[in-house]
C-alpha cells in the first residue's frame, strides 16, 4: 500500500462523481420532455413512456462508462501495486479518473438534450414518430463519441499504456528539494497531459454535436418531407464538429505512446 493506492481510490471517487453529474442532468431533461408530451397527446401515453425509457437508457451510457473506470480504479486501489510509491503511477490513476469523469460530463448533458428535443417533436407531429426515434438514437450515439474517446484513453492508461515504457526511471535527479528521477517527471507530465487533453477536449464537441442533433430533430419534426437532406447535412455537420475531440484524442495518444 502506498501513495498510488490512495490516488487510485481518490480517482475512483472522482470518475464516478463527475461522470454521474452530466448523465443525471440529461436523464432529467428526457423525463421532463416526455411528461410534457404525455400531457399534450394523452392518447399516445404508452409510446411516450417507451421512448422515454429508451432515451434514458442511452443517456445513461456515459455514467456506465464512468462506473466501469471507477470499478477498475477501485480494484487497482485495493491491489498490491508494483510501484506503490511512484508519483508517475499515482498521476496515471488520478488522470485516468479525471479524464473519464470530465469526458462524461458533456456526453451526458448532450444526449439528454437530443432526446428532449426528439420527444417534444414527437408530441407536436405524431406521424413522424418512427423517423424521429431513429434520429434520436443516432443523435444520442454521436453525442457520446467524446465520452467514448475518454473511456478509450482511461482504459489505455489503466492497462499500463506507456507506463512500462518509462525510461530513466532509476537515474536520480534532484528537482528542487524533492529527490525524483527524470523518468518519473516525464511520466507525470505525460499522464497529466493526456488526461487533461482528452477530458476537456471531449466536453465541448459533445455538447456541440448535441446542438446539431437538437435542431435536426426539431427540423425533421417540422418538415418531415426534407428528412433525407436534413439527415445528410446533419451527418456531415456532426462529423466536422467531432474533429476537436479527435484532435484531443490524437494528442492524448501521442503523449501516452511517444512521450
Amino acid at each position, binding site marked *: 500500500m502506498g501513495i498510488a493506492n490512495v490516488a487510485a481510490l481518490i480517482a475512483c471517487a472522482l470518475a464516478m462523481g463527475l461522470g454521474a453529474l452530466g448523465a443525471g442532468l440529461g436523464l432529467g431533461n428526457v423525463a421532463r420532455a416526455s411528461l410534457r408530451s404525455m400531457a399534450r397527446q394523452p392518447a399516445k401515453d404508452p409510446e411516450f413512456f417507451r421512448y422515454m425509457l429508451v432515451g434514458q437508457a*442511452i443517456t445513461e451510457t456515459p455514467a456506465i462508462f464512468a462506473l*466501469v473506470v471507477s470499478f477498475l480504479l477501485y480494484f487497482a486501489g485495493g491491489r498490491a501495486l508494483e510501484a506503490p510509491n511512484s508519483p508517475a503511477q499515482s498521476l496515471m490513476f488520478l488522470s485516468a479518473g479525471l479524464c473519464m469523469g470530465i469526458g462524461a460530463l458533456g456526453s451526458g448533458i448532450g444526449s439528454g438534450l437530443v432526446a428532449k428535443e426528439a420527444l417534444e417533436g414527437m408530441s407536436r407531429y405524431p406521424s413522424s414518430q418512427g423517423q424521429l426515434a431513429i434520429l434520436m438514437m443516432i443523435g444520442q*450515439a454521436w453525442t457520446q463519441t467524446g465520452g467514448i474517446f475518454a473511456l478509450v484513453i482511461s482504459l489505455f492508461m489503466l492497462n499500463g499504456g506507456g507506463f512500462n515504457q518509462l525510461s530513466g526511471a532509476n537515474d536520480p535527479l534532484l528537482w528542487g528539494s524533492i529527490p525524483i528521477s527524470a523518468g518519473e517527471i516525464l511520466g507525470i507530465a505525460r499522464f497529466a497531459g493526456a488526461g487533461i487533453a482528452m477530458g476537456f477536449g471531449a466536453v465541448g464537441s459533445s455538447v456541440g454535436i448535441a446542438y446539431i442533433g437538437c435542431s435536426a430533430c426539431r427540423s425533421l419534426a417540422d418538415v418531415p418531407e426534407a428528412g433525407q437532406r436534413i439527415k445528410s447535412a446533419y451527418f456531415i455537420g456532426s462529423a466536422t464538429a467531432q474533429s476537436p475531440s479527435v484532435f484531443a484524442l490524437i494528442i492524448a495518444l501521442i503523449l501516452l505512446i511517444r512521450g
Partner: protein
Amino acid sequence: MHRGEVMSRMGKKAAPAALVLLLAGCGPAHAGMRNPPSLVLWGMSFNHATIIHCAIAAAAAYILVRLLAVNLSRDHPRRGQVVLETIVDTFLVLARQTIGPKRGGWYLPYIGSLFLFLFACNMMSLFPVPNLHFGGETFNDYNNNGLYDPGEPFIDMNGDGVHNPGFQFPAFEEPTTDLTLPLTLAVIFVVILGHGSGIRFHGVRGYLKEYFSPGGLIGIGMFPLNVVGKLAELISISFRIFGNIFGGAIIMSTVSGLLHYFVAPLGMYGYFSVFCGVIQAFVFTMLATTYISMEAAEDPDPGHGDA
C-alpha cells in the same frame, strides 16, 4: 417486395453471414478485459471463451430464427411468424430509409443477422452455465473465481514440468464484454461492407477523393485528419457496446456479490441485461447502417425531391 420473399432471401444469405459472424471470435484477444488469453500464436493471443461464446450465440440466433419461421402461412400466421415479420419489417424500413429504397434490400440480410447475433450475445448471461473443467492439472484458485488467472500457479501433478491445463468450458458471459468481438464486427461492417460499397458505388477514385474532402491544398492538409476520423468511427462504434455491456456485467456481478449470491437481482438483470442489451444491439446495428449509408446512399430521386 412481399414479406415471404424477403424472408426467403434472408434465409439464403444467412449462411455466409453466419460464417462471417463466427469468424468474429477469432481475433487478437489481448484487448480482452475479463478472461486472460488462453493461446498465444504469432504475437496474437486467442481467447477460447470468446470463440466458444460467439459460436453458441450465432447458433442460438440461427436456431431461434428457424424455429420462428416454421410453418409460414399467409392467411393464418402463427405468433412466431408475426414476431419475425416485425423484426424483418423494422430492419427493412430502417435500411430503406437510411440507405435508399433500391439498395436497402440488398443490405437487409447483413443488418438483420448482425442484430440477431448481437441480441443473442447480450442475452448469454441470463443462462447460468458454470465453469466446467475437463482433464488436465488443477490450479491454485487463489481468488476462488473458478477461472485461471495468470498469477495462479498450476499444480504440476505428473511432474513433467509442463502445465497441462486441460479443457475448460467457460461459464456463460456476454462475448461483447471482450473488446475483440465488437472491434471485429466494426471492422466487418464499417470497413468491409461500408468502405467496400463506397468503392463499389463510387469507384476507387471517388472513394479516395473522400479523404481529401474539402479539395485543393486544404484537402491535402486534411488527409491525416480524415484518416483519423475514419478510425474514430471504428473506435466509437465498438467501445460503445463494449463499455455498456461490460458496465452492466460489472454492476450485476457486484450486486450479486453484495447479496452473497443468495438472491438473483432479477430487476437489475431485466434492466441491464435484457433492456440495455436489446437497445445497445439495436444502436450498434443502426450505427453500422448509418456508416454504410454514408458510403452507399442513393442520390435523392429528382422526381420526389422538394416540390
